[in-house]
């Protein structure tokens, strides 16, 4: 699956951001918690230091009861022996909130009037949880806003940054080498795009010029061939008039005649294709397809008679299309002759013209034609036949330059060529 440029950039950004968020959230949580515990421990130790330094020397045994009474978080109990300081987490039941609450507690040994006591000091950690939560939320909000902003800015920036690119892309997509059009690229601010533009411009210019040269060559070649062809034809015609031509020579002459006729047709059709490519037949008028089919019907019936082909016609009255009249004649004739040429003895041709479709169906070989190169120049179904191999490409060319559609179907033993106007 392909994605567009912007989409890809943004989804990579999004993925990265989510990953960072996922990793950062627990790390941040633990780090904050650790920091808070550190803070609590420091406070507890400071309190203890303060107690040992300032309170313990002034206390005597009787004060302990009062101390414990008025200090909720710091207690003194009698102890057996000296112990090292220990700090740990614990929970106490809070009678006010009626729930267990987490505490950080310090247990240390102190000496009051030469007796050993255990000193405990605790800090409620409920506040710390609240703070961590608040920090977490703030962090989440900040990150989200940052991401959204980043997303938005990237999108806006990319759109405007890539705008020339999309413009170039659109121009290339609509470019057709056989149309006489030039691509006009406007230079922009971004160096890479300008380079792209210049490269494409050069590429197109080079290709257009090669195409033009080739087109010109075909036209010139076809043109230049006409004079020697005329001499060839005239010489054969003259030779045929000689009375001393033997039977064997007659046969050779006949083959030459057929070959020169075919040569002539090929040349004319190549010229026709070249002329169409040079937009010679570009002026169109609205013509009645019906009239154009009927106009030469006698001629085609005559051709079809040789194979005893039955022609069935089913056309709408006054089906009008916009087309050059010369091309209309050529189109219909080629469709007709194609249907006759590839037909079988006692075959049939069905011509239907309705709803913007012109369809020529004919009986013929009992398998569908290969679609692949069907409309290419000189692509022949049967290479040995003496057609020019240009008929279908002429039909295609006429359709192309007038933006019609040509399609081929094979159903119930009929080969159909449909032109959609």
């Amino acid at each position, binding site marked *: 699956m392909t994605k567009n440029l912007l989409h890809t950039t943004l989804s990579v950004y999004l993925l990265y951001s989510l990953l960072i968020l996922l990793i950062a959230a627990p790390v941040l949580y633990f780090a904050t918690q650790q920091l808070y515990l550190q803070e609590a421990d420091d406070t507890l130790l400071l309190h203890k230091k303060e107690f040992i330094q300032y309170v313990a020397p002034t206390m005597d045994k009787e004060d302990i009861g009062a101390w414990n009474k008025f200090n909720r978080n710091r207690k003194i109990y009698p102890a057996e022996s000296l112990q090292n300081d220990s700090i740990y987490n614990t929970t106490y039941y809070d009678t006010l909130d009626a729930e267990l609450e987490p505490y950080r507690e310090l247990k240390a040994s102190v000496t009051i009037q030469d007796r050993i006591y255990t000193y405990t000091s605790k800090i409620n950690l409920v506040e710390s949880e609240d703070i961590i939560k608040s920090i977490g939320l703030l962090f989440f909000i900040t990150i989200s806003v940052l991401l959204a902003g980043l997303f938005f800015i990237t999108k806006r920036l990319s759109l405007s940054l890539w705008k020339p690119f999309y413009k170039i892309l659109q121009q290339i997509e609509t470019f057709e080498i056989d149309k006489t059009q030039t691509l006009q690229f406007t230079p922009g601010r971004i160096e890479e795009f300008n380079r792209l533009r210049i490269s494409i411009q050069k590429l197109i210019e080079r290709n257009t010029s090669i195409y033009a040269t080739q087109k010109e060559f075909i036209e010139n070649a076809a043109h230049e061939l006409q004079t020697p062809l*005329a001499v060839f034809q005239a010489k054969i015609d003259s030779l045929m008039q000689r009375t001393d031509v033997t039977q064997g020579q*007659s046969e050779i002459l006949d083959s030459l005649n057929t070959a020169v006729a075919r040569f002539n047709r090929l040349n004319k059709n190549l010229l026709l294709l070249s002329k169409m490519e040079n937009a010679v037949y570009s002026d169109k008028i609205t013509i009645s397809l019906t009239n154009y089919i009927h106009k030469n019907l006698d001629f085609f019936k005559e051709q079809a008679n*040789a194979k005893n082909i039955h022609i069935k016609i089913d056309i709408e009255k006054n089906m009008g299309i916009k087309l050059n009249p010369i091309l209309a004649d050529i189109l219909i004739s080629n469709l007709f002759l194609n249907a006759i040429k590839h037909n079988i003895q006692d075959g049939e041709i069905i011509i239907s013209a309705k709803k913007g479709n012109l369809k020529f169906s004919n009986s013929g070989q009992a398998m569908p034609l290969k679609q692949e190169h069907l409309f290419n120049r000189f692509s022949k179904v049967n290479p040995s036949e003496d057609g020019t191999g240009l008929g279908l490409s002429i039909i295609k060319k006429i359709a192309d330059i007038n933006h019609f559609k040509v399609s081929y179907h094979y159903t119930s033993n009929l080969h159909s060529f449909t032109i959609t106007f």
Partner: protein
Amino acid sequence: MKLLLIEDEKELALSIQKYLTHKDFVCEWVYKKQDAIEKISMYEYDCILLDLMLPDGNGFEILKEIKDQNKSEGIIIISAKETLETKIEGFRIGADDYLTKPFHLSELLVRIQALIRRKNFNGNNIVVFNEINIDILSKTVRVNNKLIDTTKKEIDLLLYLIGNENRVLSKSAIAEHLSGDMADMLDNHDFVYAHIKNLKKKLNEAGSRDYIKSVYGLGYKWKND
């Protein structure tokens, strides 16, 4: 009949000249514009065959010269230029017909005959061959003064055959003559046989002699025995 052929391709010119020089036709040949203009101003011709691309100029200039001199010769342009614009320009300046190269010599001959007929016989355009009488304007054929039923194509074929009397006509030449603009697309000439057969039958039934001969391997010939 006097013809002037203006054509710079020597081999083609020789073939045309040979084919046309026959019976009452005389064909002179020049290959330069200057020679052509000289000849035209000195002599009268029935028909001028004009190539457009000449070594020392354009055929259109000769055409203009002929018109400037108020000459009434029939003019047929024979050229490799096949664009509609060139043809229209040719007719606009005053050509009577336009034949694109390559062409069959038989086609050129019947075009010349048709042009001369149009020029010479005012409103009375009739071709007679022994017992056969063809009225071109009313498109009717009479054999021994009896009207026979023929199609437009058959009259066309008949004129073509008679016009090329004693010359061998190939099937492709006949096919191209009969199919006109369609000739460039046609690659099957079998229909010629059917037309010849029909025409032959109709003429024979009306009592005409059999002038249409098959020439083995080549085509047909109109021959007056």
